[in-house]
């Protein structure tokens, strides 16, 4: 029994019917503190539609077995479904399926690049160029690999509007640069970064480009060939899929020449007492029994997003951000961070003067509104902004304009808590 989504169309629509979409997400019917749930933390983790929940359950109930080794029906079905999941994700971002390595999440995918590529290719005097707006997951691995190899880490500056300073980028990406690792969309500011420009700058210096796509792939069309990036990392649970599954796209010729990251079962071709040789792509990078059910859930999530149409998803979120920014600018003492609506993803970071983000989040929670508060795993960016943290509301396919009104109302209640 798989769930049929409530909208049926062979072509991807250009407008999103939010009320219909919401019916696919059972969790949205629950209440929190006796108020309807207003879930505005999809940038941290999105909710799951029935299509995903049912795909995982269907697999668990009918086909579960270990993959690639069993010579029986269950294992063959599981293997086929797991491999199809690679194909579905590959098609979603215009890659070949052998170029999609499943990992636990974005963090593991970025560590894979840092260890498998960085540890073997970086030398003393080499430079890795990051940006000031990186999530810790695209920053700490590079700092550590740099420490071990003697390479240096450089950071492209963020300007006052929350954009990357591209002139500064042009001055730090040079002949010593071997890797440029940049986030596609900032998880704090929502800034959509000019990845293709970085690709040109990096490649002109013979460097590679690694993109942290955790906040872009769920929210906009992504074409890794058009971006011309060498690596692209993402998480399943931010794009309507389960936790425990994510992935790394890598250009085939680069992945082929890369050393494995994790060693063990399923990633080998032959093992002797003296050594081992490696399996074909992508299995060379998928040691051990993978998260099979989660991969199948991710494929269902991708299928769901494709049916909605990524252009429609992007347009919907831009409408929401535009509305949210308009409304929030009218609230006294509310500080907003990041660029204009047309230059950002579905993320709005803000602070109310005099109120710590965690207090804001607690008060909003009592209105049923779930937001994220804190440094958002981007402590260096907080330093640049001169703050300890922000409140962050993030939107997705199921977010409505009415929910933004509830948010604004609850922010008003928080303001009243602070007595004059």
């Amino acid at each position, binding site marked *: 029994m798989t769930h049929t989504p409530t909208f049926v169309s062979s072509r991807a629509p250009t407008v999103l019917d939010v009320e219909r979409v919401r019916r696919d997400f059972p969790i949205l019917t629950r209440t929190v503190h006796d108020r309807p749930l207003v879930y505005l933390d999809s940038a941290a983790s999105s909710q799951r539609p029935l299509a995903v929940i049912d795909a995982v359950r269907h697999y668990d109930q009918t086909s579960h077995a270990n993959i690639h080794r069993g010579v029986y029906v269950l294992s063959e079905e599981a293997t086929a479904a797991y491999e199809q999941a690679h194909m579905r994700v590959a098609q979603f971002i215009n890659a070949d399926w052998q170029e999609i390595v499943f990992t636990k999440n974005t963090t593991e995918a970025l560590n894979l690049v840092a260890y498998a590529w960085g540890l073997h290719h970086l030398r003393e005097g080499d430079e890795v160029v990051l940006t000031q707006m990186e999530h810790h997951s695209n920053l700490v691995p590079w700092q550590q690999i740099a420490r071990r190899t003697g390479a240096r880490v450089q950071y492209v500056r963020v300007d006052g509007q929350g954009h990357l300073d591209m002139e500064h980028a042009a001055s730090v990406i040079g002949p010593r640069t071997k890797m440029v690792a940049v986030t596609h969309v900032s998880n704090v500011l929502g800034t959509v970064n000019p990845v293709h420009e970085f690709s040109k700058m990096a490649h002109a210096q013979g460097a590679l480009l690694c993109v942290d796509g955790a906040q872009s792939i769920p929210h906009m069309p992504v074409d890794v060939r058009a971006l011309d990036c060498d690596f692209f990392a993402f998480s399943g649970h931010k794009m309507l899929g389960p936790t425990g599954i994510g992935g790394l796209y890598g250009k085939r010729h680069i992945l082929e020449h890369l050393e494995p990251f994790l060693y063990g079962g399923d990633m080998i071709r032959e093992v002797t007492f003296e050594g081992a040789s490696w399996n074909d792509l992508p299995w060379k990078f998928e040691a051990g029994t993978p998260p099979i059910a989660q991969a199948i859930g991710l494929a269902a999530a991708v299928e769901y997003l494709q049916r909605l149409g990524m252009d429609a998803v992007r347009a919907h979120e831009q409408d929401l951000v535009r509305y949210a920014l308009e409304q929030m600018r009218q609230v006294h003492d509310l500080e907003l961070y990041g660029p204009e609506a047309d230059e950002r993803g579905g993320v709005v970071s803000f602070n109310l003067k005099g*109120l*710590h983000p*965690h*207090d804001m989040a*607690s008060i909003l929670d*009592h209105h049923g509104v779930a937001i994220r508060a804190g440094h958002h795993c981007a402590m260096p960016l907080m330093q640049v902004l001169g703050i300890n943290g922000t409140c962050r509301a993030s939107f997705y396919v199921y977010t409505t304009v009415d929910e933004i009104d509830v948010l604004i109302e609850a922010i008003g209640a928080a303001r009243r*808590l602070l*007595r004059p």
Partner: protein
Amino acid sequence: MSNEMYQEHILDHYENPHHQGTLAHPALEFRDLNPLCGDEMRIQACLDDRGHLARVCFDGKGCIISLAAASMLMEAVAGKTLEEVKKLDRQDMLELLGVPLTTMRVKYAMLPWRTLMKAILLYEGQRREASATD
């Protein structure tokens, strides 16, 4: 206010904190961070010749709960001996606050207490080292 966490006495301590500031020559000092949110807390203290906490103060960045907790804790330990202060446990700290806290917020509420305990441990360790080298 529907939110039971933010009762009058908590807001009072937040808005008019007791013992907030820094000491020039503290005998005890520790700075700690809450890795979950990046909040920071520094606690300093001076002892009188009978081993009482003659002056205590905190300084930090944090939410209403963690700053109110710091203010209340400083008030509670001022004038006490180290032995008395060391007997304070998590439960005492929660009772001092006297408001219901969610699991996550308990972590923030405990930051001042944890910092103070580490300051005492550090001080006692230094004393032991100093007496061993005498």
